[in-house]
């Protein structure tokens, strides 16, 4: 064995890079291994057509962990986060739209056009949800306790979270506990009547999920999109220069702390001896020794693909196989000759600077899901669109635009057979068709089109089942259940093998929190060993 590291990271996704940077800063010798030629995993920017650069998988940040930005000094490595004044634009059939701005007053005015009652309830909604949103923030930052709490530390976590609940006051506390298992539909039924607003908010509850807005637990995801501050919705966060700039900055910080990163190397096996990790084997046969291995790859790939099957208890393997990773989305990237003309936005390009969300009503979403649950692509899919080139001219040739479209629902498993070129193109056609209803003429402005089906997302980014969150963010797969109870503390049944990806608490979205929490646990275990 040629080299030996204190820690080898499998996969240079954003969580892996965050974890690597923290471990390196703590003085460990760290090697990060990435299968692709570039770092970043699902947070990358790629030139899909000459002159057009796209965020080819994740296209916006999901509550990027402030501790990470600060500790690693990411600004010094080129990270610039943009928060457009306009958070979400929801174009509606018939040419109207609903715009959610960062300024709550302006937003309330806009909502008033659709429902005066809803406009009055908008600030009250924030106030009512704020305790739950804050609480979830604390939960995300914590390592989930073991079930039942075994160590005193687990009890402490429980008590700390319990105290936070207690401090809220009686009404807020029961409200938090009541809302968490609700469906987005149930929560919104209690608050809002205008369909455009309900559709826009409900979409936050189902993004990335193979569920509709009437599924219990979708209120929890919806809360994740809220801010406890006056702006109500969490500001839309884009990365200047594309998402790849974030992961490049993370890589820069990791390398500066002493980590080594190798790309274009495929880890084939995690090596073990006497039920303990000894290193990794690459596809070309090269072996790298490691005192510990941290996997940023999803739990199914990690345990069913990389670990020797004989190292794992069959019951544990059964649980891992049962992790639901039903991909629900596709991506479409359009090179456009001009800015698309969404109805009612003529002369107001600022309306297109945030997210553009096609989800005009709650039932629209539900029907989109209906198609998918029987194995079809939504006839009218929910779309989340960004046009980063609007504010960042480096992403497209002058006057032209790069548009990224997140498409839901596109099931990984199709009733009619597996994904192929024909089905990929018909998915692309359907998305363009849907867009044309809101932005007439967009089809004529398309210079090039690139479509990633859930199967492609699995192939390219290694997302099992095409599931971006490495395991659905459903109630039974959260917190101490994520990804399986045995691994909820980032440790695994294999000694010195850790997980740090989106498959662990707190889950998907480009936040880096899983990587941060995992690094904390790795270092804690290291201290105990000394």
């Amino acid at each position, binding site marked *: 064995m040629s080299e030996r590291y204190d820690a080898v990271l499998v996969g240079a996704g954003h969580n892996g890079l965050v974890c690597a940077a923290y471990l390196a800063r703590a003085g460990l010798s760290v090697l990060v291994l990435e299968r692709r030629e570039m770092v970043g995993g699902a947070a990358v920017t790629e030139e899909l057509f000459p002159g057009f650069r796209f965020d080819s998988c994740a296209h916006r940040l999901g509550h990027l962990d402030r501790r990470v930005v600060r500790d690693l000094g990411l600004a010094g490595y080129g990270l610039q986060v943009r928060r457009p004044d306009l958070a979400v634009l929801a174009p509606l059939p018939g040419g109207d739209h609903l715009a959610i701005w960062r300024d709550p007053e302006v937003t309330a005015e806009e909502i008033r056009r659709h429902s005066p009652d809803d406009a009055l309830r908008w600030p009250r909604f924030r106030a009512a949800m704020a305790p739950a949103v804050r609480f979830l923030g604390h939960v995300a930052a914590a390592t989930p306790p073991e*079930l039942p709490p075994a160590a005193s530390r687990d009890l402490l976590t429980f008590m700390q979270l319990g105290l936070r609940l207690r401090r809220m006051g009686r*009404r807020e506390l*029961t409200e938090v506990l009541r809302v968490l298992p*609700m469906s987005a539909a149930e929560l919104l039924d209690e608050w809002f009547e205008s369909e455009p607003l309900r559709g826009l908010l409900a979409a936050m509850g189902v993004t990335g999920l193979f569920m509709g807005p009437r599924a*219990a637990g979708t209120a929890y995801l919806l809360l994740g999109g809220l801010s406890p501050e006056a702006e109500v919705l969490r500001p839309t966060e884009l990365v200047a220069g594309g998402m790849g700039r974030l992961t490049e900055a993370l890589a820069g910080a990791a390398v500066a702390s002493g980590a080594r990163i190798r790309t274009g190397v495929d880890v084939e096996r995690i090596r073990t001896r006497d039920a303990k990790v000894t290193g990794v084997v690459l596809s070309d046969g090269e072996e790298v020794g490691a005192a510990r291995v941290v996997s940023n790859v999803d739990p199914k790939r990690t345990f069913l693909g990389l670990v020797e099957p004989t190292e794992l208890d069959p019951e544990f393997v059964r649980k891992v196989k049962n992790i639901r990773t039903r991909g629900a989305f596709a991506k479409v990237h359009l090179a456009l000759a001009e800015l698309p003309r969404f109805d009612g936005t003529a002369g107001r390009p600022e309306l297109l600077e945030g997210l553009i969300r096609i989800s005009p009503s709650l039932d629209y979403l539900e029907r989109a899901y209906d198609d998918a649950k029987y194995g079809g692509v939504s006839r009218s899919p929910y779309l989340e669109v960004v046009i980063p080139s609007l504010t960042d001219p480096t992403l497209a040739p002058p006057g032209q635009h790069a548009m990224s479209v997140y498409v839901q629902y596109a099931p990984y498993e199709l009733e009619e057979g597996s994904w192929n070129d024909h089905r990929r193109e018909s998915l692309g056609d359907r998305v363009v068709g849907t867009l044309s209803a809101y932005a007439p003429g967009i089809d004529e402005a398309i210079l090039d089109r690139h479509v990633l089906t859930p199967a492609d997302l699995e192939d390219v980014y290694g997302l099992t089942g095409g599931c971006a969150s490495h395991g659905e963010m*459903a109630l039974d797969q959260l917190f101490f*259940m994520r990804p399986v109870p045995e691994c909820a503390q980032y440790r695994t049944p294999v000694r010195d093998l850790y997980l740090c990806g989106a498959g662990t608490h707190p889950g998907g979205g480009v936040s880096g929190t899983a990587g941060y929490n995992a690094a904390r646990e790795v270092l804690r275990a290291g201290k105990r060993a000394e």
Partner: protein
Amino acid sequence: MKCKDYDAVIVGGGHNGLVNAAYLARAGLDVLVLERRPVLGGAAVTEEIHPGFQYSVCSYVVSLLRPEIIQDLELARHGLEILPLESTFTPLPNDDYLVRWADHDQTRRELYRHSPRDAEAYDEFGKLMVQLAMAVKPILGMAPPDPGSMRPGNLAKMARLGRHFRGLGSEKLAALVKLMTMSSADYLDEWFETEALKATMAASGIIGTFLGPRSPGTAYVLLHHYIGEIDGAFRAWGFARGGTGAVSEAIASAARGLGTEIRTEASVERILSKDGRAVGVALESGEEIRARLVVSGLDPKRTFLGLLEPDELPPEFVDSIRRFRMRGSSGKVNLALAELPHFTALPGVGPHLRGAMSISPSVEYLERAYDDAKYGEFSRRPYMDIVIPSMIDPSMAPPGKHVMSIFVQYAPYALNGGWDDERREAFGDTVIDTLCRYAPNVRDAIIHRQVLTPADMEETFGLTEGNIFHGELSLHQLFFLRPAPAWANYRTPLANLYQCGSGTHPGGGVCGAPGRLAAQQILKEHRP
């Protein structure tokens, strides 16, 4: 009527109200039960709708009636006899079928025919479910603690609950979390591959809910069927001799024996309050009855929004009750039949007709039935749970003839355009059409047909929005949130007013637990 003051007046002579009355009377309270209808039992009634045919009009099976109630109130002595429903028969469109029998080996052989793997898994599954049922049983038998309260008694209860859960160990705890949060389809997918088996089991998770088998939160209802004890045996369904009304009559008889006074056709119009306390009730007839305590067996909306003025209650409580979700999703069709149904999948008069017959060929079938309801229509092909009570108790119908009870889902209360006579009959036709795909002779055997839509259930039985459980059994409406946070302990913001219906913990079904737990709470505070 003389002006007598009672210790307690119970509003509603449903089975929970009667259980509550019996327990209060047993403790020495002077109790009066007031029932709006001429028959006692609420949704648990037997009525001769067509001459000679006894229908269990609404509720039709006994699965959850608490054994301690049967014991405490000596219901057997009062005529309660529960006859086991011994099988669940699922006919399939391809003329195959699946039956689960009371006899374990027989079920195993049947499952083996469909999938050897499932036959193996079935035993394991059953074992786990029984363990989990044991784990939640104490919770169903306790008044929920209030996580928001710092009172010592409440904290002690929370601590006890915490210890109980810790004692389960990690494997069972995790299994319990999954059961509480998953959809029945996902949960069963982890165990089985036979569609008919998964669907028929999943169906029990959706009964009475406005959810489909793929909706998270439906798995835990599977558990209820492992809690339904009859004579201490897990998982058996039962049917009362004389129909479900016989359960109510036995409880009423016990209550009377303990000194309870019961009046029917006495409709309560208002709960009377004075200085923030309930002091009695006013009947529609104008009569006023004074009582130290008032206990309502009606659903929370009727009780708090119908029998009281909003200004008698705190506004946030009224808000909570207003947003309590009630969407009824089921209907009922009762048939008088000249002959037994002949299922093409399993022809002839066999033991399968003595059990439940379930029209639930696949999970997708159920999910599509739900899709219709989601958008305001009744299912074009509904899920149906069928029993033929006269097979077990011949006194329910004239000799040689039969009564059939068909529970139908989904039939949304908020039907597009609303329910009327025409839509009711169309709904009835859909049910018969669906049944005749499996048992074609039924159509010509019908002597009489009674169709109950959710709107009918609201009108006849006083079930708001036709919800058979007095409120949806969704996660956020259970335990300490049922029916409202801080008021899950059978008390209400109005002093001396209590609630004892299915809208309180542990919820619906003919189990009597809310009535009993409410009585315990009342007696703790008001020893005679």
